[in-house]
């Protein structure tokens, strides 16, 4: 792979990737240093769907129906490029276990079909209840598994809605063509839908079927807000640095292209 006459340790065509990576890592370092100050609290705009979660848990208790948490039929991806969404969904799982413990609502978790993710999901739910001081509320039989594939998952979730009723249905994670059934069925059965996915291609289903929706990247920001974990909160600020970079690249690139520079090859560096 080495070019003759130069010592190329870095692959050509990845310079810009590395630049962006360095910017983000530097921003991470900078903000992690800031989080050491206990009084540091960044401003983050209000995300309306967040309030709806506790409202929904309250509604579930009132109606004496369980809270459902779904992270997608294939929401347990640990080694694909969607792994961040799995981890974000787990942050919400932790949050909802806390709320359920506080309000005394029963929580049913519909686990995704990737068996390799079962340990981490189960662990998160158990820790969530334990952290809220009610470890006895964790029940392994409410951690539902429906076999491989989206088809049995949607059926299983629907059957569970029909059997046990739906108060709040919180759906956050990696969703493919499974959410059009699970969300609409929860709606038809009188449940309140709150949710979102980072997969833009399926976001339409959430926008159309949810009472409150997290649009696209909002799930990451919302996860940070609910976690109150300084590392996650600073994550939003790190993203904003990335967004600044994106805007700079867009503007500078357009200006350079306007004066006739070969931006295509510049951006292929």
């Amino acid at each position, binding site marked *: 792979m080495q070019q003759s006459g130069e010592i190329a340790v870095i692959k050509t065509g990845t310079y810009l990737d*590395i630049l962006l990576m360095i910017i983000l890592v530097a921003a*991470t370092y900078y903000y992690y240093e800031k989080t050491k100050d206990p009084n540091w609290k960044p401003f983050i705009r209000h995300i309306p769907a967040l309030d709806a979660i506790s409202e929904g848990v309250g509604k579930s208790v009132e109606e004496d129906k369980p809270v459902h948490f779904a992270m997608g039929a294939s929401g347990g991806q640990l080694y694909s490029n969607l792994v961040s969404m799995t981890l974000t969904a787990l942050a919400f799982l932790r949050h909802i276990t806390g709320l359920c413990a506080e309000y005394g609502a029963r929580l049913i978790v519909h686990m995704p079909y990737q068996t390799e993710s079962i340990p*981490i999901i189960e662990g998160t739910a158990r820790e969530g209840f334990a952290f809220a001081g009610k470890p006895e509320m964790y029940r392994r039989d409410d951690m539902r598994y429906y076999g491989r594939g989206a088809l049995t998952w949607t059926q299983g979730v629907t059957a569970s809605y029909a059997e046990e009723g739906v108060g709040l249905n919180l759906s956050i994670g990696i969703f493919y063509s499974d959410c059009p*059934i699970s969300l609409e069925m929860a709606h038809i059965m009188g449940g309140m839908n709150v949710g979102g996915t980072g997969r833009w291609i399926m976001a339409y*289903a959430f926008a159309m079927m949810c009472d409150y929706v997290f649009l696209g990247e909002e799930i990451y920001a919302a996860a940070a807000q609910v976690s109150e974990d300084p590392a996650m909160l600073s994550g939003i600020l790190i993203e904003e640095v990335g967004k600044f970079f994106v805007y700079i690249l867009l503007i500078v690139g357009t200006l350079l292209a306007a004066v006739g520079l070969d931006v295509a090859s510049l951006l292929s560096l």
Partner: protein
Amino acid sequence: MAIFKREIPTAVLSFIGIVILLAFFTTLDIFETLKGVVTSWIPVVSAASVGLGLIYMVYAQYMNYQRKKTLNNQIYLVVPLIFFVIFFGTAIVVPGNTASDAYQWLYFHIYQNVGGTIYAVMFFTLASSAIRTMRLVTKDSSGAVQFRLEAAALMFGGLIYTLRQIPLFQVYLPGIVGFGEWVMMVPNVGGGRAAVIAAALGAIVVGIRTLWGKERTTTEVD
């Protein structure tokens, strides 16, 4: 002991992640080789864990049945096991395994069929949600009519591209193919691309946090 429960797994995670990044960004063969070895492990780790699903399913159904001895719960306890035995038994016993005619018959008429039907059901659930959402105006309690811009945009994108895909309109509604493609390639790309870039940034930040060892989900759960 605690170090084996927390620090070492986190270090393993970060080490592997960084090696893979270096394999992508540098020309050093050592990282490429390491990446090759680890990535070839992944299918095995993932496949070996498949038995967990069976255990969880049976356990949940059994506990449900113990709690409430209804007909539905009886079905859930017995029927999956029967069909598990039928399918697994056929796959193991009949020569040719899953390629045998007997297994193909089961697979085609039952499994594939129900799978296909589930997707078919989604046509109906999507249709009803669209009927509910795609309304240009709503009346509030006082009877005043309100125009909903965002619903209109949703409806615009949705209906034009639907018509574009239906043969009837392709033939009898001139220009719909071009218009549909325009919606797909211009406004859809504009909005979709922004969402993709934003979600990508979000994903990378979670990724960096994970490699840094600060992602609570991967460090604290045990």
